[in-house]
């Protein structure tokens, strides 16, 4: 709370020092603009449209990344074929993908595809790492006792991989929002947060740029919390959570 007040004060002082609304609007102006925007019906439909598309991208990227990692964990050939491609996707700048994907799909699906492409490599790498880190001793137990595959999955494999999957999800949610909104800013699909951000910048309404950025940050943090809460309910054989690099 005190930290928030401190930074609001810093912001206010900086705005006074700069003295130009265009360069740095004061907190009160941004707050006032937020109050105006939030009562417009279009605000909520805009947020909902971006939220649904980016969430869809996150889910698709997570599912595909997990499935590919499981396949790569089971078959060396799949791993040899897939790993370099996923590594390249991970290393490529997000704008390159946005421009490329714009050639393939319409702007309405752009955020879904771009978010998915950003999340996929993170999930793939984390789940594959989790598969590699399974407890060899427990796999031996399963082999000696001839534990059925489904039971082994539930008791040994999934609990070992889950902490890695969970860490990837936490990182992936933030990535999905960042890349999804970036895709909207470039692709300008109608009635999305990214398009509103672009319009605000074009019309030099800096207060709106700040408001929409704050909305994206708030939604991203809320999504991270939601995913985190859901993942805490899952069973795990590792009490600590591994780190996953974005």
């Amino acid at each position, binding site marked *: 709370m005190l930290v928030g007040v401190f930074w609001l004060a810093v912001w206010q002082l900086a705005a006074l020092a700069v003295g130009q609304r265009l360069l740095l609007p004061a907190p009160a102006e941004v707050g006032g603009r937020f109050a105006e925007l939030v009562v417009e019906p279009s605000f909520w439909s805009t947020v909902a449209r971006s939220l649904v598309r980016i969430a869809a991208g996150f889910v698709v990227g997570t599912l595909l990344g997990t499935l590919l990692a499981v396949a790569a964990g089971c078959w060396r050939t799949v791993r040899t074929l897939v790993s370099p491609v996923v590594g390249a996707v991970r290393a490529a700048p997000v704008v390159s993908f946005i421009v490329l994907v714009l050639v393939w799909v319409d702007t309405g699906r752009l955020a879904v595809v771009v978010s998915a492409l950003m999340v996929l490599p993170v999930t793939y790498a984390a789940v594959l790492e989790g598969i590699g880190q399974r407890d060899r*001793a*427990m796999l*031996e*137990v399963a*082999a*000696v*006792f*001839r*534990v059925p595959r489904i*039971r082994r999955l539930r*008791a*040994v494999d999934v*609990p070992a991989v889950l902490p890695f999957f969970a860490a990837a999800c936490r990182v992936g949610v933030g990535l999905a929002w960042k890349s999804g909104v970036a895709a909207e800013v470039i692709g300008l699909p109608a009635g999305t947060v990214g398009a509103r951000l672009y319009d605000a910048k074009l019309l030099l309404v800096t207060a709106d740029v700040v408001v929409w950025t704050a909305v994206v940050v708030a939604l991203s943090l809320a999504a991270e919390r939601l995913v985190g809460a859901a993942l805490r309910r899952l*069973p*795990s*054989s590792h*009490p600590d959570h591994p780190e996953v690099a974005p």
Partner: protein
Amino acid sequence: MIAVRDLHVELGGRTVLDDLDLDLPDDGVVAVMGPNGSGKTTLGRALLGLVPPTAGTVEGADERCAAVFQEDRLCEHLDAVANVRLVLRRDVPACRVAAELRALGLPADALHRPVRELSGGQRRRVAIARALLAEATLVVLDEPFTGIDADGRATVLAWVAAACRGRSVLLITHDVADAVRLGARIVDLTPVLEGAAL
């Protein structure tokens, strides 16, 4: 009968077992003893198919196996009953498993707690129950009584002795008294020193 013939195992370029011959009867306990590094655990792992022989054969060990490993090797997030049921047929009821664990000296309040919360001796009892309640004709017990205190040892030994009946059991131990209580035939794996003079 399980017949080990001329078993030779090398691990990391080092000979661990050298031309070992051993018979395990269909109903009986064979206890292997010897100092650390004499290949007791490797022999158990070879019987379980976890270590391929460099030379020699293990015949008759392709049936259903079970084991108490040197470490407990339990699913930490599962409770004691679930750990045992993991390796059993679906139709074995939880209440029967609970009753056997109680007979092994596990307190009632330990049955349904994640095994990561149990003491060393309690975890060992779960590992023993898992191995000996499984439908196995060959059971390898690698130092199964480690961590079980003197008070509970007699109870556990009696339970294990009863559960071993009708199976081939390889007991790996440093304690000759445990081997005797299980009525085991004792095999000494102490290596003969080359060039030793009397």
